């Protein structure tokens, strides 16, 4: 390979059939070029046998399931670009939803800061304890349960619209509801670790209110 004759290297680097043919003629009388050319040919001939084939009967079902899961969890990925241009007028809705969530969070934070983190959630007169008392916690949980019941009733009515949205507007509603659901799940997880945290409870109630309002709007749109 490192001999004085460099014709093999040059021709192989060019890798064009006519150069290789000329090299073959030359290699017939040049041992320095014959060796690398022979090995070159051997590698080229052996390479296709490296192709591996094996049965994977479970692979595509796994792929299909993964795509289905992805489709269910991120429906907008596939659907949004397919939406007609006329749907652009509804594009403000997700942004509005995000903005409203941001405002709710900021207001909650501001209230919490102003109170120095000591104001209880529902019963201001009860105590200056930063945590909810047992009684106020009970009130809060009752209010939450009412919201949840109301939301469940609305969700049952709205489910067909959410599952199979017929217009971009319903797609956007679904997206907003998914956003709210994930926020609710997150806050509830935090509450699990600290049930008496008034700030978290306030945020959760705000989320429930927003979800209830969204479902009501959706139903109103569906029946109009």
């Amino acid at each position, binding site marked *: 390979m490192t001999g004085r004759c460099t014709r093999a290297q040059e021709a192989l680097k060019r*890798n064009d059939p006519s150069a290789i043919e000329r090299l073959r003629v030359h290699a017939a009388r040049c041992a320095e070029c014959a060796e690398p050319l022979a090995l070159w040919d*051997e590698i080229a001939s052996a390479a296709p046998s490296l192709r*591996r*084939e094996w049965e994977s009967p479970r692979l595509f079902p796994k792929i299909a399931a993964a795509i289905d899961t992805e489709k269910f969890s991120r429906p907008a990925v596939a659907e949004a670009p397919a939406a007609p241009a006329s749907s652009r007028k509804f594009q403000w809705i997700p942004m509005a939803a995000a903005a409203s969530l941001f405002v709710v969070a900021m207001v909650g934070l501001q209230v919490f800061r102003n109170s120095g983190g000591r104001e209880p959630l529902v019963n201001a007169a009860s105590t200056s304890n930063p945590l909810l008392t047992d009684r106020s916690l009970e009130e809060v949980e009752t209010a939450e349960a009412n919201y949840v019941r109301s939301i469940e009733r609305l969700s049952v009515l709205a489910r067909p619209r959410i599952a199979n949205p017929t217009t971009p507007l319903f797609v956007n509603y679904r997206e907003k509801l998914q956003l709210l659901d994930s926020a609710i799940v997150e806050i509830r997880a935090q509450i699990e670790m600290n049930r008496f945290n008034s700030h978290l409870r306030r945020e959760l109630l705000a989320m429930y209110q927003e979800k209830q309002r969204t479902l009501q709007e959706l139903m109103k749109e569906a029946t109009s």
Partner: protein
Amino acid sequence: MHVLENVPRTPRPAKEAFLDGPEETDGSSGARDPAEEKLLDGCRAGDVAAFERLYELHGARMKSIARNLLGHETDAEDAVQEAFLKIYRGAASFRGSAALSTWIYRILVNTCYDLLRRRKRHPEDALETPSGGGEGSALPAPAGDHPLRIAIEQSLSKLAPRQRTVFLLSAVEGFSHREIAGVLEVSEGASRTLLFEAKRRLQDLLWTSGARGRASA
């Protein structure tokens, strides 16, 4: 002396089409084949039948490429699955600056690179290097396997990733340099050079290891 008369060859389909379309279709942009357009639309809509068709067309080759890049069938299947998910996620924004097949092989190769990088960062997650057997691991060596084939396979891991990829795509899978250029986003000249470097390095490795001598014996 040529030793390859006895090397078992995996039959390569006659000019196996890179695409399910015209032979000369390459990675460059241009009018899309209507069947490909339909397939792409199906992928954009998340239509499982479209992905099944894509899998029928390219799945075997994708598995082979991934297996040779990653060295293990289980990893290869994971890479193919991940590539399909990326195809689903990206189909909506794929604007067709390349052929669909170019794009999916590009996704696959990048997915394999990601897995290799991840494996470097977390070597404890890496599966054992295939040793030629074992259920769910490396495929058993084909009957009558030739020492040179085995030696090449072992030497491949010592090549630079790009060299290895070009060698696999060109010499093993039969992609043209135009197609490789599209997949790897390099020039055709760069693809030729990488192939030459890969083969030269393989020659050196085979000489050094003595595999070539044994194979020729």
